[in-house]
């Protein structure tokens, strides 16, 4: 996994340790590890195109489905915010479900565990990769949403919506990564991932859709309401810390 760390974890007792060269004992800095892992992640995605195109296509298709299911040509306000976030969430679920599959099936976990590096580096790298997927997804899905369903022009809402999307994405990335790691080595991982993730994401849906609904109305929006942004930020922070604290326990074998 990280080619810059040739040493394996020492099996020798501490008394025999000084015999080993000093250079081989300095651990690889975590930042380097994260960068290498993230690079690998994005490279794999670029070469296989397994997640992001599927997620984007799913989102666009879902908008079409909503058009027929609601029997409406245009929507705004609460409805628009709800449909946008539900669609993004379900599209994100596709990415979450695939996030660790290659690692579990093709020995990525084993390779990572052999490397003498900080375990949480994998969490950070995976969450960053998921965040990148979500950003790309939204670059496709939000314009498509504006084009297909949204009644008011999206231009004036964009700056506020951007802030809400980023805060929402951070939470989805943190929770999604934790849940993906939790579900991937179970028998029913395709089922358990969404089942675990959806209730945990309810506060994100509350915050994000309440924050974005005033932006998606015809009258000029003033910006996302601070209370919901605060809720989103706090939730992101708390679940980021929880994921960081618990992730290493998922990687012990």
């Amino acid at each position, binding site marked *: 996994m990280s080619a810059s760390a040739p040493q394996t974890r020492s099996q020798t007792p501490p008394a025999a340790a000084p015999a080993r060269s000093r250079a081989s004992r300095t651990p690889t800095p975590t930042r380097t590890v994260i960068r290498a892992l993230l690079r690998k992640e994005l490279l794999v995605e670029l070469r296989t195109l397994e997640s992001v195109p599927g997620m984007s296509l799913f989102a666009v298709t879902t908008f079409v489905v909503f058009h027929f299911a609601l029997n409406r040509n245009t929507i705004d306000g609460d409805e628009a915010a709800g449909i946008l976030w539900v669609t993004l969430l379900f599209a994100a679920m596709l990415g979450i479900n695939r996030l660790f599959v290659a690692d579990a099936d093709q020995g990525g976990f084993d390779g990572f565990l052999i490397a003498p590096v900080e375990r949480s580096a994998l969490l950070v790298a995976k969450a960053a990769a998921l965040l990148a997927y979500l950003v790309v997804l939204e670059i496709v899905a939000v314009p498509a949403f504006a084009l297909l369903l949204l009644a008011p022009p999206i231009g004036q809402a964009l700056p506020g919506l951007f802030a809400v999307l980023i805060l929402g994405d951070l939470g989805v990335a943190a929770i999604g990564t*934790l849940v993906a790691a*939790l*579900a991937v*080595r*179970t*028998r*029913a*991982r395709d*089922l*358990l991932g969404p*089942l*675990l993730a*959806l*209730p*945990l994401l*309810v*506060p994100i849906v*509350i*915050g994000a859709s*309440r924050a974005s609904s005033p932006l998606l109305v015809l009258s000029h929006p003033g910006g996302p309401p601070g*209370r919901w942004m605060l*809720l989103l930020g706090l*939730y992101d922070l*708390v679940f980021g810390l*929880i994921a960081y604290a*618990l992730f290493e*326990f*998922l990687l*012990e*074998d």
Partner: protein
Amino acid sequence: MYGKGLRALSISTVVVMAIALGLVFFYVPLEAQEGFLQKIFYVHVPLAIVALGGFVLGGVFAILHLRTRDARWDMRSYVAIHMSLIFGVATLITGSIWAKGSWGHWWVWNEPTLVSFLIIFLLYATYQPLRFAIEDPERQARYASVFAITAGAFVPLNYIAVNLATAYVHPRVFSSTHNLPASMAFTLLVSLIAMVLLYATLCKYELTAKYTRAQVRAARRLLEQRSVGGAPVSSRRTRSAVPSVYPGSAPGQVAGEPAS
């Protein structure tokens, strides 16, 4: 091990439960607006409090499990969550009945406590599917603990979020614990104690049953091994959805179940 004190606990539960029901039906006055229906309050609220407390307790036990790596903490965490799930079903049912009686609908979205309880319940309902989709007992315990801690932290956070989402839009229809008359508060307290005791007793029963079953299984395995002469015997595969704990047995027996 867990059986000690079980009888005393059971008896005190029955006694306190009887006192609580007596208070509910014969002592506490009828509530002015809702009348007799309001008495479900003394069942519903303690059930909800105990269920939520049990979920958080399961998370605390899970932290202890990850810290000490003692499988017994995992079993306690499992039992706490399992029992809370049962109490949770009862909470949702009694809540629904109460809502139907006093507001005319089986479900109301503007009661944040009920809504957040449902979300928490839906999350915990995945605990057992997650747990029993993992074969390896050690990993099963570890993953279940990670889930229990995450979900335990989610309980208060979700409550805050749902409250925020509801409280500012609709005024609370009524507030259940503020300005309660002394007789009602006292009855509620006794009912709560009774419910806590019931929870503790049921948990203890389940722990005792699991522990005994594990001991019997270990003893039977030992017997089979002796009778064959040391060769590992493929024991009958238990179909139980029970966290694996083999107290007092050789460590080799923990992972000794061959895959069938």
